[in-house]
């Protein structure tokens, strides 16, 4: 039986979402396949790694007992000799338990996880893992570079300006002036590296703009300011696969522009902001999106094109903004590891959560095996010259 390490938690504002994704959308369906042994690997908010079967219990986190448990556990260490091995203290006369990992299923959202950091580590270890590679993750998670790359490839993007935390601190008035010169209200202010809509604000006047910039700079060292798309329909498309990507169904968040699709709308208020419906993250949207066929097709094609441009693999979600009047599809952002894997959408598209994780594992193996065939050494006479 293969051992799969599911890595979750981490030093990110999306720590808690990562736990839910891991426990409900990854570990549970993986166990239901009865094909794998699951090794849960939890990274706490201070960046310490723990591995213990008890970490699979959701009650541990909802009750807050996780703190007591990790205080009792010894953090694990990792070995990179021919793959990845988790080294745990067994508690018996200082003996160590070595757990060889066959595949890693990252369940990390935001910084140090979804942004390519973890993927770089796993590439170094030479272990197959689910999802996008280091470079693609890094590109996609930076909202600014992602926008620039999409724009360079002829895909429409909304008008934008960017700044850094340092610039904002040094010359706030100049930044505000530049924004006002180049863009028109309403504006969206976003931290460039975070997902799950954390730290995003909408501003319709100077005061809200100042506040929004402060919030975004609290989470990130780079801030993106975008002009709002008119006649807006916001859509998102989850995609899986490697070189032959498969789209799920185009999904339309059921929020008004002023009630934009923020963290609370997605995860806390049961979907539609402020409505308190009990459906959680699955109740906030319309699947498939209620737009005409032509626009649906255009958005789907745009998302699939972006998937290839960014070199995404395994799983991702492409967010787009549609101006219904001009029928323009704008690229908004890419999420290399969608919260909950967007299992609710895949279920409507005919792929169960169990089937989804099974497919993702096969894509991970396919990608890993493909990379094994690549030549990674090149003989030169360079060293002899010294």
């Amino acid at each position: 039986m293969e051992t799969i390490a599911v890595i979750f938690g981490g030093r990110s504002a999306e720590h808690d979402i990562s736990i839910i994704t891991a426990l409900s959308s990854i570990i549970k369906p993986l166990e239901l396949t009865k094909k794998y042994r699951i090794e849960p690997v939890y990274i706490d908010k201070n960046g310490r790694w723990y591995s213990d079967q008890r970490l699979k219990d959701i009650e541990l986190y909802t009750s807050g007992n996780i703190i007591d448990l990790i205080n009792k556990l010894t953090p694990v260490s990792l070995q990179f000799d021919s793959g990845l091995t988790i080294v745990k203290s067994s508690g018996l006369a200082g003996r160590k338990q070595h757990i060889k990992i066959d595949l890693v299923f990252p369940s990390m959202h935001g910084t140090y996880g979804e942004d390519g950091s973890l993927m770089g580590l796993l590439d170094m270890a030479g272990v197959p893992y689910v999802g996008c590679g280091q470079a693609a993750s890094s590109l996609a998670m930076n909202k600014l570079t992602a926008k620039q790359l999409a724009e360079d490839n002829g895909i429409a993007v909304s008008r934008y300006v960017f700044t850094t935390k340092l610039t904002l601190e040094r010359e706030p008035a100049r930044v505000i002036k530049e924004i006002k010169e180049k863009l028109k209200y309403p504006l969206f202010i976003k931290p460039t590296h975070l997902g799950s809509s954390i730290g995003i604000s909408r501003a319709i006047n100077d005061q809200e703009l100042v506040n929004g910039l402060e919030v975004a700079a609290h989470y990130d060292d780079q801030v993106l300011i975008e002009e709002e798309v008119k006649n807006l329909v916001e859509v998102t498309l989850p995609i899986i696969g490697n070189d032959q990507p498969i789209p799920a169904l185009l999904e339309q968040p059921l929020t008004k522009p002023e009630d934009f699709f923020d963290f609370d709308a997605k995860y806390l208020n049961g979907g539609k902001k402020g409505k308190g419906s009990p459906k959680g993250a699955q109740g906030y949207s319309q699947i498939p999106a209620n737009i005409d066929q032509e626009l649906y097709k255009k958005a789907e094609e745009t998302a699939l094109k972006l998937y290839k441009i960014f070199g995404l693999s395994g799983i991702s979600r492409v967010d787009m903004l549609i101006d219904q009047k001009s029928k323009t599809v704008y690229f908004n952002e890419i999420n290399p590891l969608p919260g909950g894997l967007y299992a609710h959408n895949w279920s409507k598209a005919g792929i169960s959560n169990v089937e989804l994780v099974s497919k993702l594992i096969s894509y991970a193996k396919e990608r890993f095996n493909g990379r094994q065939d690549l030549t990674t050494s090149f003989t030169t006479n360079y060293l002899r010259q010294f």
Partner: protein
Amino acid sequence: MIKKILNSTKSIYSPEFPRTITYMLQTTEYRVGPYLKWFWKTQDFSKVRNRQELERTTVAKLILNTLKIGIAIEILGGLVLMFLTIGNIVPGGWGFGLAAIIAFPVIWSHIICFPVSLARLVIIDPKERQSIKKTKQIFNNHQGTKIAVAGSYGKTSMKELLKTVLSQGKNVAATPANKNVAASHLKFAESLSGNEDILIVEFGEGGPGDVARFSDTLNPDMAVITGISPAHLDRYKTIENAASDIFSLSNYVEHSKIFVNKESIEAVKYIKKNMKLYDRHGALGWQVNDLKISISGLKFKLTKGNKTINLSSSLLGRHQVGPLALVAALAQEMGLSDQQIENGIKEAKAYEHRMQPYILSDAWIIDDTYNGNLEGIKAGTSLLKELEAKHKIYVTPGLVDQGRETNKIHEQVGKYIADANPDKVVLMKNSVTDYIVKGLKSAGYKGEIDIETDPLLYYNNLPSMIASGDIVMMQNDWTDNYI
């Protein structure tokens, strides 16, 4: 193995043991035979109260307290005997005392059968006789048309269908849910206003003579026999005994007023002259045409001479066409208009857990978990075969109360499932699983067979395993007393 023995031992010496014994008696309706059978089959008593809890009725409380007091006295007596051995007052008392303490679970789980049997003889049975007498009196004085519904399967669905359709033009009363024994008949009779045009009474058949007794009580004007199949064979012993009890209706109802489901092969053997038959092709001279079947239900035309009624129903499966045709035809004879019949048929919904479709995780679930007979399995698997789906999953624990024929019947269950050719068959592990697997394999089934040991866990995890386009057919569900 050692772990199993340890768990088993732990479970009989658990403080919860008296409650478990009381629950077992309650679940078997205080019948000593089925209770003892269950008791001796059980290895781990901690798993007995798996699905439900003890209902704290007066009888249950009385039994539970008797057990607790009895066990306490026995343990105390054992300890006293052991203590007296120390002073040599009772030589050898140590052994007897220890034996008494060790044996209390076995002793009290059997001693309790005596007061329970006595209570049945002295209190329950006479009370039942009295209620039958009272019920008979109320029914005899009622002027409405009385319709009996009997059979090994499909009774509740037929009763509900008759009630829904006939209510469109008549004042109809029917026994509620699947309440079909003497006590519930009395409750129903007492609830009548006396102004009803039609009374529909479902006859349960738990053992020999039940249907005859109910017929004598109701004295029906007409009867529907929904079919015969192996059911309740633990008490009937043979299907012939069950069939002759159900067909004893013919001693009380004019033969031309008895409507028999022709699709039931077993029922056809007992049909008498002048009895009326119905099936998927029609009923009482009405012909079924242009039948369309889907997950949303049935659509067909009912034609007699120049007259045509267009019917659509949310009921699922080809086997529902016969009952629908019969009810529509009876409604016609009873004077309902075509519009009333069409409305009634459209309004009829699947009864809870009987071919009841609903959506879970974007997939279609067909909940037929109250189905407990071979004919129902045949109907369910035929429906699954007929429906279009991305993945077809079939879930069952098998059937209960199949008597001596159980192995053969479950091989047949396996063959029916194989004929539907689902992508996956999920079997809840129990004493009949191997026979279903045998039937599946002998019929050449090549799909996936998944054997689950914890039904509740499986049902809880089901949403993660299905998606849009999938159909899951769930047939039958075993209660705790079947293992």
